């Protein structure tokens, strides 16, 4: 409870937003480990897109470049914060030992 009263979670949330705003736009665009293996061994083209994601590849539709990624990141930060808070509260209150 002390943590909630101290409000440290707001500092953490701010840090998360800063990471999304400042670091995400300058992230490396090189393929990640799995993509690299898929490219090297010829199965990268097996990938298919099954749904129309609202913010595909972390680029806010209608925008481009750094700001599109930064805002997508901040949105994701907010959604994750809300979802985890809500779902965890729900899970704690509806489970029995």
């Amino acid at each position, binding site marked *: *409870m*002390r*943590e*909630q009263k101290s409000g*440290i*979670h*707001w500092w*953490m*949330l701010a*840090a*998360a*937003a800063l*990471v*999304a705003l400042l*670091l*995400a736009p300058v*992230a*490396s*665009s*090189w*393929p*990640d*480990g*799995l993509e*690299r*293996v*898929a490219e090297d*061994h010829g*199965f990268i083209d*097996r*990938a*298919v*897109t*099954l*749904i129309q*994601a*609202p*913010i*595909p*590849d*972390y680029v806010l539709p209608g925008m481009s470049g750094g700001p599109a*990624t930064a805002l*997508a*990141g901040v949105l*994701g*930060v907010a*959604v*994750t*914060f809300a*979802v*985890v*808070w809500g*779902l*965890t*509260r729900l*899970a*704690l209150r509806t*489970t*029995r*030992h």
Partner: protein
Amino acid sequence: MHIPDGFLDPRTLAGTAVMGAGAVGYATSRLKRELDEGRVPVLAAMSAFVFAAQMVNFPIAGGTSGHLLGGALLAILFGPWAACLSLTAVLIIQALVFGDGGITALGANVLNMAVLGTLAGYLTYRLLGRRPTGFRPAAAFVASWVSVVVAAVAAALELALAGAIPLRVALPAMAFWHALIGLGEGVITTAILAYLARVRPSLLSVLRPESAELPS
């Protein structure tokens, strides 16, 4: 390490979905014993941080990049079951909102990263950092590295089972890149935990007296 749709075959997708869902169900049942409700805001905030950090790919050797996974970080802070659920939420949001990771492959991604990688990292820390008083940075580093490599090995097994690539190729390839990426995970995780341990040690669940026993 997010597997997109199309890499795995229906049998592997179904099997990993069942295992992933089962593990998440179990984690939910363990949550109440592990997480005090007062910690929910901090868990939510650190989950949001992990989401953001997963967007920040850092270059490793040879034109490849990696990013933080965050399983060991969350597990050392909140315990393995809360970490598992938190990462599962992150993965679902990534898949549904941002198209990062497949929808049918969600079970596999949850199994690899939120369950196996996270648990392996947590167990490694508990085994190496056996002394419950004081944060053990070396143990955290190794635990973080292990979490990434274990998740990658699980993914390699799935790729091989699905016929995308032979195991004798998949395993060394995935292990190689993720052994490097795991070093980054180790550095980032250890730095964050060391900072938090210094300014607010009560944040780390592994430092709390009641976590002195390994989860039964």
